[in-house]
């Protein structure tokens, strides 16, 4: 590792000054030698929280107390940096907080350090059971993400870069301990982390660019499950007249993994009418797992059809998964008004396990762009997607070996960019696909997709936009008679009558319908799965700078859906800012969260939140 670091340090010295890149300019010193920026400090009150607390925590999860709500600090340029910038968000007890530090010196280095904390709380049943029973999956975890990147000599011909990353999660929850015939809610502790180190070299020239990079990663996942009192589990009936139970039990997972990935990205423009680009990745991922289980109680062993009072097992195994991805594209411009793009990509993985998963996926695309007139560009093309996979069959079907599936789909792709008048742009995308092989019953084989997007800037005050999406398709009988339809359309208007006022209104109407038949596992009767979701979503934002720095803003979003899981979710908000001094503002903010479900009304909640605080600012003296 140290040798690698030395290599990356010497490359810029050896080659850094040989590039044809322009000479750097020394940054103008700012008029003020003190940091500038702003910090927002506040106290959040929650005067009302009615309804389901677990649902509130699963969706919103904001608490009361003092907070550093936001901060931006810009340090004046110094000897070691032209830019040093720190950003903070939601520190002091909020479930989501972060900071980001950027340091840069032109043509010398650029470094970013970022850190995020994320609380994940979810204690809701993931199925539509009005009784709310059997919610045996809940999570109360803290996740941390750290990333640091350093690019040396950015913008120069040779630019080495290094980086490290660390993601970790720790916490508790509820997860079932599963034995033959029954499952038992157990206290779960999770502790997993993934650390990566990456290094590479970017070589940029006038007519080509190459990036070489290598990433090494280490991973561990140590989960434990524990039951320390009698637990009769979720089974409502006896098993051959006996009640199954666990009196105490422990599961322990010890999973260690590593991965190494080597990649090359390149672009080239050998002539004025040809651009080439490509990418190649080879990854080798490895996992070593050990699992220990000890439990006492009354259990059934289904393979031997006998009862036992204790289960003890220990297992170790190892998995490898090499993966290769390669892509290539060429853009030809034989005439000034015509562009032809050919691209091909392949992705292959092979899980070297007892029962392996083998997967090949390929895509080839040919597209032509024709500038018919100055305001009309037409795009037509063809996409061919194909692949093959081998996966384990059902546990009841071990004799037949691996299941093989293929994917084969031909698509016509097209589109247009139209600018009939100044400041009006219309984008259209169309894909019509037909296939005769699919991975799964719900993989769309035959479908058509249309997407339209329009934006019109009437003048400096008014901007209007509209969008429409429709994906409609069905699978033939061999793939399960799956029917799918997704339509979404909406419009938005932005009005900025002056620098002091801004209003934005947006509305989207969506409709999703899927329809497929399946068999009831118990009696093999046919069941129709019909999923429907009709939604209305609206957003309104109004900002008004009433007088000097006295500001008002109001708005929010609302969502209402009808169908298989009817839901309403309202999030209005308002904020008032009053200047106290040149460098200090007082603000008050109100937010409301209202959530309700038609079938699962006990999960509804309503909450008012008030935040009072100060915004401290310091700007550059002129």
């Amino acid at each position, binding site marked *: 590792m140290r040798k690698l670091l030395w290599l990356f340090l010497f490359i810029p010295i050896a080659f850094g000054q040989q590039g044809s890149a322009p*000479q*750097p*300019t*020394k940054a103008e010193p700012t008029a003020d030698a003190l940091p500038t920026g702003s910090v927002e400090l506040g106290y959040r009150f929650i005067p009302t929280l009615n309804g389901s607390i677990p649902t509130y925590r699963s969706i919103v999860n904001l608490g009361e107390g003092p907070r550093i709500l936001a901060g931006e600090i810009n340090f004046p340029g110094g000897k070691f940096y032209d830019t040093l910038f720190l950003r903070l*968000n939601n520190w002091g007890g909020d479930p*989501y907080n*972060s900071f980001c530090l950027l340091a840069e*010196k032109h*043509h010398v280095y650029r470094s970013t350090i970022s850190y*995020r904390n*994320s609380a994940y709380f979810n204690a*809701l*049943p993931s*199925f539509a*059971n009005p009784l709310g029973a*059997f919610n045996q*999956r809940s999570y109360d975890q803290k996740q941390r993400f750290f990333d640091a990147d350093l690019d040396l000599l*950015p913008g120069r011909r040779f630019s080495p870069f290094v980086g490290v990353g660390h993601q970790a999660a720790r916490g508790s929850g509820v997860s079932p301990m599963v034995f033959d015939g029954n499952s038992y809610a157990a206290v779960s502790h*999770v502790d997993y982390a993934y650390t990566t180190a990456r290094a590479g070299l970017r070589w940029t020239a006038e007519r080509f*660019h190459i990036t070489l990079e290598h990433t090494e990663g280490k991973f561990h*996942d140590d989960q434990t499950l524990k039951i320390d009192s009698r637990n009769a589990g979720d089974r409502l009936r006896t098993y051959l007249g006996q009640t199954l139970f666990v009196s105490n039990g422990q599961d322990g997972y010890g999973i260690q993994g590593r991965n190494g*990935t080597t990649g090359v*990205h390149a*672009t080239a423009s050998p002539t004025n009418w040809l651009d080439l*680009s*490509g*990418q190649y*990745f080879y990854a080798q991922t490895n996992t070593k*797992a050990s699992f220990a289980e000890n439990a006492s109680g009354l259990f059934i062993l289904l393979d031997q059809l006998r009862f036992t009072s204790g289960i003890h097992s220990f297992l170790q*195994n190892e*998995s490898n998964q090499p*993966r290769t991805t390669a892509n290539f594209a060429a853009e030809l411009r034989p005439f000034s008004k015509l562009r032809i793009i050919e691209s091909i*990509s392949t*992705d292959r993985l092979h*899980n070297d396990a007892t*029962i392996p*998963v083998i*997967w090949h*996926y390929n895509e080839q695309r040919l597209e032509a762009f024709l500038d018919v007139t100055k305001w009309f560009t037409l795009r037509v093309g063809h996409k061919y997607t194909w692949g093959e*996979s081998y*996966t384990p069959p059902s546990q009841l079907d071990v004799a037949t070996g691996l299941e093989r*599936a293929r994917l084969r789909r031909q698509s016509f792709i097209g589109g247009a960019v139209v600018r009939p008048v100044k400041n009006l742009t219309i984008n259209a995308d169309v894909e019509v696909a037909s296939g005769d092989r699919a991975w*799964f*019953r719900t993989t769309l084989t035959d479908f058509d997709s249309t997407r339209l997007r329009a934006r019109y800037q009437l003048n400096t005050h008014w901007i209007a*936009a509209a969008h429409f999406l429709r994906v409609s398709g069905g699978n033939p009988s*061999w*793939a399960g008679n799956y029917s799918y339809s997704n339509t*979404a359309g*909406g419009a938005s208007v932005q009005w900025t009558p002056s620098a002091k006022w801004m209003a934005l209104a947006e509305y*989207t109407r*969506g409709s999703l319908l899927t329809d*497929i*038949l*399946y068999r009831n596992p*118990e009696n093999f009767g046919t069941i129709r799965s019909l*999923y429907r979701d009709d939604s209305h*979503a609206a*957003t309104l934002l109004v900002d008004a700078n009433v007088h000097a720095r006295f500001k008002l803003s109001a708005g929010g979003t609302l*969502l209402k*859906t009808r169908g298989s899981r009817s839901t309403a979710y309202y999030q209005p908000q308002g904020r008032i800012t009053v200047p106290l001094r040149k460098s200090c503002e007082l603000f008050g903010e109100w937010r409301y969260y209202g959530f309700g479900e038609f079938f699962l009304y006990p999960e509804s909640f309503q909450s008012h939140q008030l935040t009072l605080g100060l915004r401290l600012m310091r700007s550059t003296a002129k």
Partner: protein
Amino acid sequence: MRVVKTIAVLLLAIGAQAATDPKWETCAPCHEDLVTAFSRNQHATAKNGCDSCHSNAAKHAETADPALVGNPKKAAPKAGEATCLACHKNHPSRVGQVRSGHGRGQVACTSCHSVHAPPVPQTASSRNQQCFACHAETRAQFARPFSHKLTQGQLNCTDCHNPHGSFNGRALASAQRHGSNEPGCLKCHIDKRGPFRFEHAPVRLEGCASCHEPHGSANPRMLVRQDVATQCLECHANLPGAALAATRQVQGVLPPAFHDLRDPFYRNCTVCHTKIHGSHVNRAFLK
């Protein structure tokens, strides 16, 4: 520690070579605030100063006629892009652009990038607002109760998407790659990364989006169906036809077990199949 000191010394040595080149004298008298803010911008190092992007800047300075100066932001997207690509053509972000929706839709660089702005990172919220300005239907999806924490400012769109486009093995051409050439989802959901001794095929073959709706869902686990049993049984469809089973044209259709769906216990498959994303221990994903 020694290595850190060495890096610091080398950076100082390289930094000391920076030269002064006052290219802004022509424009600064009228555009002082722009030039001042620009001094911390990467583009401040452009060879010909303002003229690098704004053609005829000198003529404009002589006459003060705004019509004379070239402005990539006001030009047609193709012409504006040509200005940017004069320097950025062979750049890492260009590798996947031919497959990106932005590239195909001729979205101008200046639609998203503020060329004069200081190089400070945007807040997650401001970046998301920028994306939502065009992708309004995605904003509507994030208004759903169970979604990734974008609206709380914890994530931004570019954590998962590469707006310049990426060569991705899957259908989602804009998805970020991560670590061992894995889907961007696994950057945070690291316990799902495997490889597992017993893989659940859809995770590898179709990715997380075959079961989850990442932008927002009414289901607490962000599933694409209202409940777990429906989600699972649509694929594990129990002998949908003898021909289908015999020819094996699609996977996962054979009966998983003879469960009684009238019992609520069996309505939530993941109560027993706890390791549904893949298991190191059990073939039926029970542990």
